[in-house]
């Protein structure tokens, strides 16, 4: 399971979500890069070279860190970092 500390309060701020997301995806990165330089537009698989099989593991980590449930339909829409932020926000708002 994720080593990232669980979010204990409601966050809706994009940059706070991005910070947590960076921590979550860090071990999965297939390229050497400084996460500070992440813009959000990067594709998880093509740009960050994350093994596509690991997308489900990232989702499991996101669910446990943000205490949300991500619907299976959302998985195919999670192409970029920004897509992920949108999906997380949508679930937090629920």
């Amino acid at each position, binding site marked *: 399971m994720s080593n990232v500390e669980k979010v204990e309060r409601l966050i809706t701020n994009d940059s706070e979500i991005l910070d947590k997301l960076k921590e979550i995806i860090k*071990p*999965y990165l297939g390229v050497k890069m400084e996460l500070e330089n992440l813009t959000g537009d990067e594709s998880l698989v093509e740009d960050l070279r994350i093994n596509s*099989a690991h997308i*489900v*593991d990232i989702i499991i980590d996101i669910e446990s860190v943000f205490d949300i449930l991500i619907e299976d339909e959302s998985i195919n829409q999670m192409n970029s970092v920004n897509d992920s932020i949108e999906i997380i926000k949508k679930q937090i708002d629920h």
Partner: protein
Amino acid sequence: MSRRVVITGLGVVSPNGVGVDQFEKALKSGKSGVRHNAHLEELNFACQISAIPEVSDELKAQYFNPLFLKFIENTAIIFGGIAGIDAWTDAQLTPREEPDWDSGVIYGCGSMAMDEFISEKLQMVNEGKTRHLGSRVIEQTMNSGTSAFLGGYLGLGNLIGSNSSACSTGTEAVYQGFERIRRGKANLMLCGSCESHGAYNWAAFDSMRILCRDSNDQPEKGSRPMSKDAVGFVPGTGAGALVLEELEQAKRRGVKIYAEILGGEVNSGGQRSGGTMTAPSPEGVKRCIATALKDSNIGVNDIDGICGHLTSTMADPLEIKNWSEALNRKGKDFPYINALKSMIGHCLGAAGSIELAATALQLHNSYFHGSLNTGELHPEIEKYAHRSKIPEQCINFDGEIIAKASFGFGDINACLMLKKWRD
């Protein structure tokens, strides 16, 4: 097409020594890897001792990246991976950028999914939380988990697979790799075996009353192959790996050669003529040894030593009788024989490959390790093998050929003949 096959790399994760250097020191000094196991005691096992390699997190970090270690908890893959990488490095090989189509992996396991890591995963399934399992459980439950890891890590493009044949798994893996190179289907095969660790794997053996249950307060005395007091085997775990290479390629590369594999055989007694699911048919065993001799183009008197299967059960006397009858040699004419399980218990699927690594080391460095705790020999053993042929301590050994055999549930047998390499 028949080509010669040699051993050019070794890797060992053994309960009495991790890494070839530590393992060899342990073989020479007769170091036991058997210790008390508090977990088995807590679970009411009759046998509360076991033999487990000591692998620290620091050591793991030298072999595996953080992403691997985040998910991979199955000790069979961790031990198997370390032994496999060590053997590869020992043979002066490195991971490939492009697939190496002529090199493959056969890495067996007795029971991959029974490792204790599975407990938490099964609980998630039982609680209806299947979706939380994630992407890295399959590779830890498929029996080919270790071969798949090593094949990918090293970039190998020949056969990448796993065999499973109970306690003969390790010897069978090496036999299969040997055959593949001999027949020209590969030039190099990384062969070995590993075993999953812990209570789930060992519980049913405990229930069968075939584990040692009288030595909980003196663990190092528990494993006593060939002794008249042998009452059961000590469960163990670990991994062994051997790089097998076609002779001409090994010579071209100019690498160290430990030993040559002359030939071998695998067979079954068919669970007839005294053979059952759990007991070997003497006819099957003797036929396996005889066929391995023929396959190696050697005679019964060419055998200088035997690395036995010898588990510290009531099957030991029968094994000695079978060797004696297969080789038509007894008393002082019986070859030297030793039992590594006296030091490291019975590592089940991992046993054969660890014992083959020990065999190669002994031939290469001219010694024959002793067997611990033989004490007073079983009277049925003394009828066939003279006491002097079962050394209690390590001896100098100028023999040329050691026979190694493993036997397993299902009445199955595997035998290989290894010869000292002289440049």
